[in-house]
């Protein structure tokens, strides 16, 4: 039977959440092709959570081990996956995570084929693998036909919601039989807090006059922190002009746009110059006590009420899901 390989990710010996997304995506393709899903884990030893992958539709879970596979070993991982794929896989599915963006192209190149990267949807139409990928900063979607043999894909994180789809998920372990390679991870450092630029961050949490005083931005920083290193704290012009926040944090005015995946406007009424700067964000959340505030007109999700009550609860909720 043909196989769809789902390349999972672990950090510190535990599977990362994207693994279940990758297995979910692989399962969808395998169902379309009438194939089996083999979840592939690369590690230096047993990995916590590998036995759960059956629940998302993995027929088998294979952990390939080697010295130096404890942390990401780009060359060794790529060689191991490519080696396994050469054994007859029809499709290799990775995540377009930080690791996957590095790994998937190497796998594809080793297999002498292309990579359909950063996909937001996959489908099998008449036996042919099709995929959707956003281009031009999400301003257009490409539908592509993937004809590689095997086809190599990477899935945009947080898009393929893991779906319970129980399969056997029989786990086994084998030696990868390849060296870790010349590129080695020496250290993983926690990201510096606040290092992200508002223009670059995938998540932007902005505050306005509703925060009442500069010190209260602490609660926004706490929320940003709950998102790990992915969130930056922004500010409205009113707040910057009042000297509460540095100018570098200002969102809006003059067509300076941010387009994060998630924009949370807190205590911002939504002056037009602010809206002009953030309305291309993928998802906009507004928290404001004034239900008529213009920000709610552009927000996908609004919560009306006292931000000092709402934000800490949100922070706790985000933390518990991280």
């Amino acid at each position, binding site marked *: 039977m043909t196989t769809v390989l789902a390349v999972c990710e672990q950090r510190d010996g535990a599977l990362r959440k994207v693994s279940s997304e990758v297995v979910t995506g692989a399962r969808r393709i395998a169902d379309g092709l009438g194939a089996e899903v083999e979840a592939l884990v690369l590690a230096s030893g047993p990995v916590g959570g590998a036995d759960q992958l059956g629940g998302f539709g993995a027929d088998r879970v294979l952990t390939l081990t080697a010295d130096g596979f404890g942390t990401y070993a780009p060359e060794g991982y790529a060689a191991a996956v490519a080696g396994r794929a050469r054994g007859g896989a029809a499709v290799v599915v990775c995540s377009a995570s930080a690791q996957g963006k590095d790994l998937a192209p190497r796998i594809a190149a080793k297999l002498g084929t*292309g*990579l359909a990267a950063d996909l937001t949807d996959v489908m099998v139409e008449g036996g042919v693998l099709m995929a959707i990928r956003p281009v031009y900063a999400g301003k257009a979607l490409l539908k592509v*036909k993937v004809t590689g043999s095997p086809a190599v894909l990477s899935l945009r994180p947080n898009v393929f919601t893991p779906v319970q789809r129980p399969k056997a998920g029989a786990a086994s372990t084998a030696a990868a039989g390849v060296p870790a390679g010349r590129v080695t991870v020496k250290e993983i450092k*926690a990201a510096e807090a606040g290092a992200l630029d508002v223009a*670059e961050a995938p998540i932007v949490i902005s505050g306005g006059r509703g925060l009442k005083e500069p010190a209260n931005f602490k609660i926004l920083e706490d929320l940003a922190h709950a998102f790990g290193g992915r969130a930056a704290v922004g500010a409205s012009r009113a707040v910057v002009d009042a000297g509460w926040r540095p100018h570098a944090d200002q969102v809006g005015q003059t067509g300076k746009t941010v387009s994060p995946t998630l924009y949370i406007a807190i205590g911002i009424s939504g002056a037009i110059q602010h809206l002009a700067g953030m309305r291309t964000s993928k998802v906009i959340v507004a928290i404001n006590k004034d239900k008529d505030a213009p920000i709610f007109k552009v927000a996908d999700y609004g919560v009306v009420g006292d931000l000092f009550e709402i934000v800490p609860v949100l922070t706790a909720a985000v933390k518990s899901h991280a």
Partner: protein
Amino acid sequence: MKIAVCIKRVADSETRVKVAADGKSLDDAGVKFILNPYDEFAVEEALQRKEKAGTGEVVVLALGGATSQETIRTALAMGADRGILLQTDRIPADGFVTAQAIAAELKAGGPWDLVLFGKMAIDDYNSQVGPMVAELLDLPCVTAVSHLTVEAGTATAEREIEGAVEVVQCPVPAVITTDKGINEPRYPALKGIMAAKKKPLEVKPVSLGGGAIEVVEMTPPPARKEGKIVGEGAAAVPELVKLLREEAKVL
């Protein structure tokens, strides 16, 4: 210090995207094309390394249409020494096809002390040609590097990963793809712009195969949905989180 920098001409990020009549590509009427911003970091990195070494050559290589010469001139105006354009009338949808053409050219023109790319192009978001070229040339590679030091034949690079920074080492020569933060790209100086006109720019026509990725159609993204008030006060938070996770899929 001989450094190759692979660059791409891309539509400006401010571009209003309209689908062309073929239904598969960008309508480039009124579109401004620029040097891919991530590639600017690569050019700057190469220039700084050459300047530090006191000697060497920075060669910029692009694959694209004849208009990519302009983009190469921008890099030459920044200070690169010469340019090569692999001229083709279309940029393949399959990054591996591009990678093969670039790898062949780099192989012929090598050896290189460093091969630099931007971490991705802001048009196709492929993030793949750099590491593919590394595989094809059998060079070590670190992608999305926001800090780089090279000492005694070893490159030490920092790359951002989810919620942390990876410190990665590899021997050089190597392929490095650059991310924001690695440096502050210079603006071309007047003298640089003048000098760029006289620098060599070699145009080599290439014919490319089809590859494994074929564009079926390009469409605008679905229109923004009507927003909704989830609720009032802290009590609305669980519902908000649920919607963000399950409907918006951003958590």
